[in-house]
């Protein structure tokens, strides 16, 4: 049980940190709040939040970051996060609460950052996956996660010195706009199906949609919406 002195920083992780930092600076610049969760390591969520709210370097901007702790983290993020916000999680790839939050992120319109170690989450499970390869179960207490989110803070503040780069890239730069085309948009069901319609939450807000194609739906179900209609119910989490 002797944690390595060397740090699991790699070229890949450094590049992922850079992309995450620019994305985070863009979201903050757009008015985002960052919600921090770490079901198994509450103190990491709180350390991230205090880092951004009360910077150790005098003169750096205080940014809205909040640690969510305690029971029902999924419900806490659901009620807290607005479209355009950021969720940062510190958790293993199998953490059920974090997986559930990440699966809903697109429906809620939030950008996600996932910090952890060991087995990696599947590609695309979060917008930014900041991962240490070591599968040491005690790694969370060795300072390596602290380094990762310290660097996230430091690089994010470097990005603020480049105001020309702080406008988030538009989703509609391609000839075919994903948001507006005939692809389905993810949404989360707000109320159980009644009379073939239901209310869903998507990145655009609350929408009333027709559910006849999808059959019975319950609050919390994830669906794909197209042209005012639920076209598919997304499957359950497959750990």
């Amino acid at each position, binding site marked *: 049980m002797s944690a390595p002195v060397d740090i699991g920083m790699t070229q890949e992780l450094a590049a992922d940190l850079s992309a995450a930092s620019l994305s985070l600076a863009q979201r903050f610049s757009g008015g985002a709040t960052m919600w921090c969760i770490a079901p198994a390591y509450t103190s990491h969520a709180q350390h991230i939040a205090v880092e951004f709210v009360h910077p150790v370097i005098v003169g750096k901007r205080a940014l809205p970051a909040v640690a969510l702790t305690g029971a029902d983290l999924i419900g806490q993020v659901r009620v807290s996060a607005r479209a355009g916000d950021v969720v940062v999680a510190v958790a293993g790839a199998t953490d059920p609460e974090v997986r559930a939050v990440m699966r809903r992120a697109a429906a809620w319109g939030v950008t996600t950052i996932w910090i952890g170690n060991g087995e990696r989450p599947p590609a695309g499970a979060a917008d930014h996956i900041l991962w240490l390869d070591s599968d040491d179960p005690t790694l969370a207490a060795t300072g390596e996660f602290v380094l990762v989110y310290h660097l996230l803070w430091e690089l994010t503040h470097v990005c603020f010195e*480049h105001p020309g780069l702080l406008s988030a890239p538009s989703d509609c730069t391609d000839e075919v706009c994903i948001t507006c085309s005939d692809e389905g948009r993810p949404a989360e069901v707000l109320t159980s199906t009644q009379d073939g319609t239901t209310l869903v939450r998507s990145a655009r807000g609350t929408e009333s949609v027709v559910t006849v194609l999808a059959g019975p739906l319950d609050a919390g179900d994830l669906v794909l919406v197209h042209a005012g209609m639920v076209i598919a119910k997304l499957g359950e989490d497959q750990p």
Partner: protein
Amino acid sequence: MTEQPRLEEATNFLYPFIDGTETDAGALLVDLTASALTKAATSASLRRTTLESCGALITTGAAEMGRRFAAGGRLFTFGNGGSSTDASTLAALFAQPPMGHPLPAWSLTADQAVLTALGNDVGFDLIFARQLIARAGPTDIAVAMSTSGTSTDLLLAMREARHRGMYTIGFAGYDGGEFAASPNVDVCFVVRSQSVHRIQESQALLGYRLWAAVQSATDSPAGVWAESRGVR
């Protein structure tokens, strides 16, 4: 979707060289990646020198902590801000380790009712000292985590801990601050850096190594259990 107000940077006028028309993020991302690698290397180097300079203290501290846990002692950790969260991580490592045997440990920032009651009624400087008066005894251990080593609430808590016969361990950065010279600090781990972030990263590793050494010192869970209850 609710339209959110854009943040304005109030200090932009200080940086006339900032290019508001920059549009290619590629160069910035290359710089950021190089910066992350450099900072991580600096952190790793500081961890190495810190463990070298503090190795003997880890052995000394863990041996006494092991004796105290065996005698029924408990660990109380505390700090301010980010250091309070690192203190909580350390307490959780002792109390709910992913491997090895659990040892009684708590962070004194865990209960906001207690913290705000003390802060409101007796003052912020006493938020930890008063909890030690209520909870701690002569076989117990106090760990104060700080980067400056000079926070008044921590120094008062260490004075109270000394008064109660506790074993006291301080974590500090820079030159050790007042922790380094205090007669109320039995073991002072100093991470010699000027960067709060790099200091905290090394302190976490020091705390981890301290825990690992205590685990070795109290190798038999049954033995610890028996001794702590006076049955052996």
